[in-house]
């Protein structure tokens, strides 16, 4: 077992050395006062810059895939390696030492969530058709789940799918759909039987985003850019073989996606935000602003660092459990909550240190650039299940607390619509 892992590491290292540049310096830290003065989380780039970055992501994913690192855990039949999640994490750790394009546009939703869902629920020829294309970087997938009146209460989706011969005809509206503007396919939750209770009348369909009747309209985020979208579906025809799971059995399919979502969101240890909030960088921030000897500021820095380090330890523990063959438990939700909290506190800490130079761009390095992070962190408490929903899940599923009395889980969905109790 260890020698097999050593070999994996060696080949990964060889691949990375041949195809990428190792970051200079000992750690992957931006040097204070040097280089691009940006702390990006969501994109704030104009569409043409965005498109160029997406092209780079696709190209790097293809290189990975062709060398056996595109889908480390996936089945061989679809170009995977059938290795463990641990191998995947080890590879990510190695890759973080290199300067490579960020592939979040492909991986966060498509490869991280939709891919595993297709693998678990689609027919074989659909898997053949889409999985290799996704992991090769050709097909970007989006998650067509949330709707204007179905957010936390996702089982209240209203987008209709009606059977017509071998096809389904889909009509409705999705919202907050990340990466839809770049996507080739989308996994769409549709209401197929309103006479059943809300969880029981949903069907999951894989929609071709270039099909007639699919219209993607970008939504501008508070952070400035437009990563997410509204998606209008008007008479969109989806062949029945693009259905995942059973007719009216889409909720089970959605749960597969959501489980993978929680696992993805908590574990983001790399990226510009993590680097900016690392201790060495924050120390430089304090030094540059003459705050390194200020007791109150030091206290807050220590608190921030202690929580970051403990969250990292929690992630190490999850990895060790994986290594020992135990499936990760509720740590993923805890990490997600902590991740959002640490980033949010970090951004506000930096803001306090920078002071008025955060409210107006004086051009001074390392000051106004914190606005990007500050304006991104509110999303972390919402996306992938809000903080409140996560807490409900931890309390009910882990601690065994009783559920709230629910009025809408048993009645037919149609009646809820009429009485106005769904999706509120």
């Amino acid at each position, binding site marked *: 077992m260890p020698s097999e892992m050593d070999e994996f590491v060696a080949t990964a290292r060889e691949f990375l050395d041949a195809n990428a540049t190792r970051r200079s310096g000992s750690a992957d830290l931006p040097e204070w006062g040097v280089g691009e003065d940006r702390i990006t989380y969501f994109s704030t780039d104009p569409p043409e810059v965005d498109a160029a970055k997406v092209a780079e992501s696709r190209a790097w994913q293809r290189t990975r895939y062709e060398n056996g690192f595109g889908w480390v855990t996936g089945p061989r039949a679809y170009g995977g390696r059938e290795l463990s999640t641990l191998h995947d994490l080890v590879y990510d750790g190695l890759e973080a030492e290199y300067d490579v394009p960020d592939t979040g546009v492909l991986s966060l939703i498509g490869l991280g969530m939709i891919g595993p869902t297709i693998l678990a629920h689609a027919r074989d020829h659909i898997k053949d058709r889409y999985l290799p294309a996704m992991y090769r970087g050709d097909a970007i997938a989006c998650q067509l789940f949330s709707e204007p009146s179905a957010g936390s209460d996702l089982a209240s989706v209203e987008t209709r799918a009606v059977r017509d011969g071998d096809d389904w005809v889909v009509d409705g509206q999705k919202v907050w759909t990340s990466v839809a503007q770049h996507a080739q396919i989308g996994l769409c939750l549709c209401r197929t039987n309103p006479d059943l209770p809300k969880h029981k009348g949903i069907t999951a369909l894989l929609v071709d985003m270039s099909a007639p009747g699919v219209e993607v309209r970008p939504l501008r985020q508070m952070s400035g850019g437009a990563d997410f979208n509204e998606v209008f579906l008007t008479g969109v025809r989806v062949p029945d073989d693009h259905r995942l799971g059973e007719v009216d059995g889409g909720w089970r399919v959605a749960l597969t996606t959501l489980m993978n979502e929680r696992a993805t969101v908590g574990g983001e240890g790399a990226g510009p935000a993590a680097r900016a909030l690392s201790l060495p960088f924050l120390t430089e921030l304090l030094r540059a602003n003459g705050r*390194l000897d200020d007791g109150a500021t*030091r206290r807050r820095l220590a608190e921030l660092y*202690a*929580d970051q*380090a*403990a969250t990292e*330890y929690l992630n190490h523990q999850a990895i060790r459990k994986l290594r020992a063959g135990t499936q990760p438990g509720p740590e993923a939700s805890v990490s997600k909550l902590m991740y959002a909290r640490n980033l949010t506190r970090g951004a506000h800490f930096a803001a306090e240190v920078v002071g008025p130079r955060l409210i107006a761009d004086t051009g001074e390095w390392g000051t106004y650039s914190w606005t990007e992070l500050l304006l991104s962190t509110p999303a972390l408490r919402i996306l992938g299940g809000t903080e409140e929903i996560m807490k409900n899940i931890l309390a009910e599923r*882990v601690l065994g*607390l009783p559920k709230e009395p629910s009025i809408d889980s048993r009645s037919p969905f149609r009646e809820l619509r009429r009485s106005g109790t769904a999706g509120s």
Partner: protein
Amino acid sequence: MNGTGTGTAAPSETELGELRAAVRNFLAAKSDEHAVRTAMGSERGHDEKVWRQMADQLGLQALTVPAEHGGDGLGLVELGVVLEEMGEALLPSPFLSTVVLAATAVVASGDVAAAERLLPAIAAGTLTATLAVPDHAGSWDVGAGLRVTATGGRTGAVLDGIAPIVLDGATADVVLVVADGPDGPALHVIDGDAPGLARTPLRTLDPTRRMARLDLDGVHAEPVGDPASLTAVLDRVLDVATTALAAEQVGGARACLAASARYATERMQFGRPIGTFQAVKHKCADMYTRVQVADAAAREAARAVDGIEGAPAAGIAAAVAHSVCSEAFMAVAAENIQVHGGIGFTWEHPAHLYYRRAKASQLLFGGPAVYHERLLARVGV
């Protein structure tokens, strides 16, 4: 990961699980709430029979004592399991003072004679001991002067002064004392019943953990170890002690969380369990999150202190754990009272015992202002 572990292998989860079960069963039988309250009100503050049984039946005092001195030579990962259970049960015991503070100081001092004299008896459960660091601030800041001075030569020193707050100071059979001597601060050992030593038990915030004031007036002492290495010795003791305490704090916090979750499920108001109200439910989820993060910090610190491969630097991980676990236990102990409402504020309910333990533990080695600065110092800021 700034891996500095020397490559020690981690103990298996199965072994740790067996140890945990043994300690848990023992404490369930010997240290239920009634036993804790009885010990609390007793003169010595702990049940000496339980102390002996801990040694005879489970060998807990021997766990981390080096094998050459009659112990099992295990590490903080194992000891952490024991302390977590003790913290959960609120066991009143001179374990932290004897096994953690005193034994670690003796081992770290490298003084073979002292080790041979003290460690086998500690391991056997026949000797209790403690460590007094009588600095002015109560934060182990020995550089700023000490309230006990040592005079005399290498074979026998004489100690004078005051150690204002000493853990289990009134009952310990021997006391290790850091005193200012001719070569700077140095470690000494005195007998608990030495002539010239007056020990005054103090009223304590936490009745499950006894403290005493020691007045030393010409007390005969033996030097322990080389004064030149004292700073390193105390750093090691602090890393071990805060890591051990972190495990105990996690155990206490876990007990509070379990009590709240249980009560939220049982207590009915407005015709439904209070746990269905989100204000209560989310409090419990927040408590759970804090406990999980604290647990991870305590475990990682134990691995670091044991030098397990891939673990972070011991000084950093111990300081992280001390800060995170202190705050988590305090927060969870306070919320536990809130979840229980009026009953939680009564003397007869155990919630206040955890609250007292949480605050006293948080302040034991200096408190937030000190541990935050210590953490920054350890990471070089």
